[in-house]
């Protein structure tokens, strides 16, 4: 029972992270019909930006964990929002007329540049870095089950972020514009919506949210490395696909579903934890074979 609760918390945490990454994929796909494969690596760059900010703050004698955390998160998110918009402006938009394969390749290669940039550019970047535990680590013990306060706070923050994205998309004028562009870019343009601006803002939002997920990941595992984004990106994309690309709730649902599968796999399989990533990736391949466009299928017909 206690173990089950532990797994539940862990699964929920993973679900929130995957969901947040998946939201980015689904937003980009919504407005431009492209998949930005560098999304996971943007997350990595975000975490490392946050980590660098933390080191800078420590060097500047700012020792309050709360201030450190807030500044670190804001810097990471703002920087990644800018990076996301730049990527959209200079790499994704110029290729909008080219074959889809080219966008795919260019973002894959960009991901490599970012990943290797972190590895080579960060001092001793090849090795994992200890991410500071900035949240209070008070632990509550119920029998054999320990619940750490920081896990709860992270979970709450992640859920709050999901709600914030939901409100932004559904309740604001900007969200209306994003939804309009996602539905039909041409018509949105004729209605006076600045297409390019909306696309750039969407990419900024998605990338900022990814940076948030990355910081969450760093705070939860207290360790970051240059290739963490690759796996998170693959899982996030899979979550978005499972939920049906272009559908924000589907993406979040997909995130939780995927985290659930992964957690159950880790518990149920006899050879357990060593093969947990192998299992998760095999599940992705199996799901793609079974439902190629996700569990909530993409409604589309092709015009010739």
């Amino acid at each position, binding site marked *: 029972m206690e173990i089950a609760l532990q797994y539940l918390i862990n699964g929920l945490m993973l679900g929130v992270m995957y969901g947040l990454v998946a939201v980015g994929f689904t937003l980009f796909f919504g407005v431009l019909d492209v998949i930005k494969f560098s999304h996971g690596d943007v997350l990595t760059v975000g975490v490392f930006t946050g980590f660098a900010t933390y080191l800078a703050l420590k060097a500047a004698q700012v020792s309050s964990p709360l201030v450190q955390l807030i500044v670190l998160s804001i810097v990471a998110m703002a920087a990644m929002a800018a990076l996301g918009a730049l990527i959209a402006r200079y790499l994704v938009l110029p290729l909008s007329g080219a074959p889809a394969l*080219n966008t795919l*390749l260019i973002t894959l*290669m960009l991901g490599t540049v970012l990943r*290797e940039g972190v590895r080579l550019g960060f001092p001793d970047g090849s090795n994992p870095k200890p991410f500071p535990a900035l949240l209070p680590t008070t632990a509550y013990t119920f029998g054999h089950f320990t619940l750490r306060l920081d896990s709860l706070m992270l979970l709450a923050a992640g859920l709050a972020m999901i709600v914030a994205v939901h409100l932004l998309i559904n309740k604001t004028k900007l969200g209306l514009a994003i939804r309009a562009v996602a539905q039909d870019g041409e018509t949105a343009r004729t209605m006076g919506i600045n297409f390019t601006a909306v696309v750039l803002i969407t990419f900024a939002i998605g990338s900022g949210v990814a940076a948030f997920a990355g910081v969450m990941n760093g705070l939860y595992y207290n360790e970051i490395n240059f290739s963490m984004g690759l796996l998170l990106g693959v899982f996030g*994309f899979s979550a978005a*696909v499972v939920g049906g690309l272009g559908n924000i709730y589907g993406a979040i649902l997909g995130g939780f579903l995927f985290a659930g599968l992964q957690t159950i796999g880790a518990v149920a399989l006899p050879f357990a934890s060593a093969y947990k990533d*192998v299992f998760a990736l*095999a599940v992705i391949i199996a799901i*793609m*074979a079974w439902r190629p466009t996700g569990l909530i299928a993409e409604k589309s017909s092709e015009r010739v």
Partner: protein
Amino acid sequence: MATSPNVRSPLPALVWAAAATLYGVLFLGAESQRALGTLLAIAAAAVVLGARFGLVDRIRASIGGNERTFDIAAVAGVLAVAFWFHEEHFIILMMTTALLLMVVALGLTIQFGYAGVVNFAGAAFLGIGCYTAGVVTKYTSLPSFLSLPLGGLMAAIIGSILILPVLRTRGHYAALVTIAFGILFKVFLEVNDTLGGPQGIQVKPIVLFGWNFNSPIRIGDFTASFYFSYLLLALILLVLSFALVRRLERSWIGLSLDAIRLDEIASACYGLNLARWKVLAFTLGNFLAGTAGAAYGHVLGFIAPNNFTFGDSLILVSIILLGGLGNLWGVAVAAAFVVILPEKFQVIQEYRLVLYAVLVILILLFRPQGLLPRQLRDYVPGAKPQSTHSPAEERV
């Protein structure tokens, strides 16, 4: 291009082959970074000037008109360079690696270039070949040279697990499947103890008719490096797969693959069986990668999961993109470039992944058809049609 020269003299092709051979000897033999830099600058200048004065087109026309002569010249060129450096272990190893990666790149060309099936797990299929060689020599008493066909077969069989998801998906989704498989393969190797875990596994040398490939060749006064047998093996593999891929491209199979890549719906309407040709292209490409991988495993002697990362798969994709998707000679040049450059310039070694990624991004932005784009389909090599199409307008 409109005034393509009607001269079908083999001279330009032969001069080009000789120049490339000489350049290979100079470049591989150059020790100082300054000499290497000068050589690179000369090559860049030659390419720019050659393109400016139509030399590239003349060489190309000459190659097209005298294919057999040029093929023989190219093989002779590789052999000439190999004999020149026959005692230099490192250079022979580098050449062998380049030749084997060319075979893998040919396999990927069938997939990406002809059928339009994406495969971002090239390094994983190469790795399946390597590990098959390791398992065959470590756990079985099968003759070691059997690892070559077995490696190819294993890659094809394991690849067939992916056939269903790859067939049912397109574009980004298919990319996700192969990326997931590539990462899965490496993680699996790291946690599987039978295959040596993160430390890897030893691959024993090939022994053929009592001849151990790892022993140096001695004939009279001539002594060659212990990698020399592998170089010859790699060259034979490359010649065979090059012939196969070119025949495939020229055949109606190649035509069907091109049609499917360019428009799936239209080709389905004309009665082409999409699934059959995609499966064929995917499996054949993986077979080539696995076969080359088995040979590569024997050459390396020791393999570990870190040789087959996602980054390595992307390097393989860079090779076929830099060369020009579907252009076989372009792929060969790009493979040699990608393998040898970082080995000669040790400074780049660490940065090679970034370098190639940036190069590919620039090419996709400014010259999407690749450095040496694939030419229009030439049905009767040697006879020049009155076509005035430029390759950028129509690429079939």
